[in-house]
């Protein structure tokens, strides 16, 4: 009985979470405007109509892009603003890849470190047996 009720509760929770996720996806699809598609930023305009911009600076188009990015992300370094602001999810995933890789290698290589650990744990286990 207990396992049955537990399974029922887990099923209800899974259905609720799935329903909430589905609702969020549909809501985002219908109501939210697209973010960061470049239409509000004039870099799009720079690409399609270069005549509208003043390209006679020393840096040319790069200076214009940096100025536009300063208004958007408030960072002087475009690469940093892309890595940590516009593509923050990507950096999060990258750092979690590193975390997972180190956890996996720890599982494989940890037997070499057992000699360094204190032997009280092993003694406790034998006493219980």
């Amino acid at each position, binding site marked *: 009985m207990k396992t049955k009720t537990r399974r029922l509760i887990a099923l209800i929770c899974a259905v609720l979470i799935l329903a909430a996720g589905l609702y969020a996806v549909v809501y985002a699809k219908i109501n939210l405007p697209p973010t960061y598609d470049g239409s509000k930023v004039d870099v799009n305009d720079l690409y399609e109509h270069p005549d509208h911009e003043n390209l006679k600076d020393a840096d040319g188009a790069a200076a214009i892009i940096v100025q536009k990015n300063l208004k958007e*992300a408030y960072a*002087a*370094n475009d690469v*940093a*603003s892309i890595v940590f*602001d516009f593509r923050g*999810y990507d*950096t999060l995933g990258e750092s979690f890849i590193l*975390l997972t890789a180190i956890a996996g290698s720890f599982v494989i290589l940890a037997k070499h470190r057992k000699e360094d650990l204190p032997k009280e744990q092993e003694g406790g286990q034998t006493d219980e047996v």
Partner: protein
Amino acid sequence: MKYKKGIEQKNIIVKCGSDKFLPFALVFGLYVILFGTVSPGGGFQGGVIVASSALLLYLGYGYKTASKAINSEALRVGESLGATLYVILGLGGIFVGSVFCRNIFYNDGAVGDMISAGTITFMSYAVGFKVLCGVGFLLLLLMGILAPDADDEKEEAK
């Protein structure tokens, strides 16, 4: 490697080289982390440079000294701490009412200062701390494969 009277005979050139280059590696790595948002580089790259100093320590002095000098448990905790800090800083954008990883407090410092880009700077520091701890821990693990065999040989030689 040769052993004489229980003392590990290391090449003096490698030892002096690790002595000379270790502080420079640490300072340069911390510089790359701190100025990651205004100059080439960033948290990831600087963290790897700092972690490479553990390898220098191992090359110069062997596994036992390196594992005594570096607290591996603290590194393991610090990696999770850095990841959590990154997520908290990223969630700040949602609490303000925008998207994940939005730059929230950007009105500090002039453009080009060390701390000038608001949240981006601190996210870079969090990633740098996380990579520093993670890669350092990974290097210690990899040293652990190589080293205990050498120590066993040393005990057998006794």
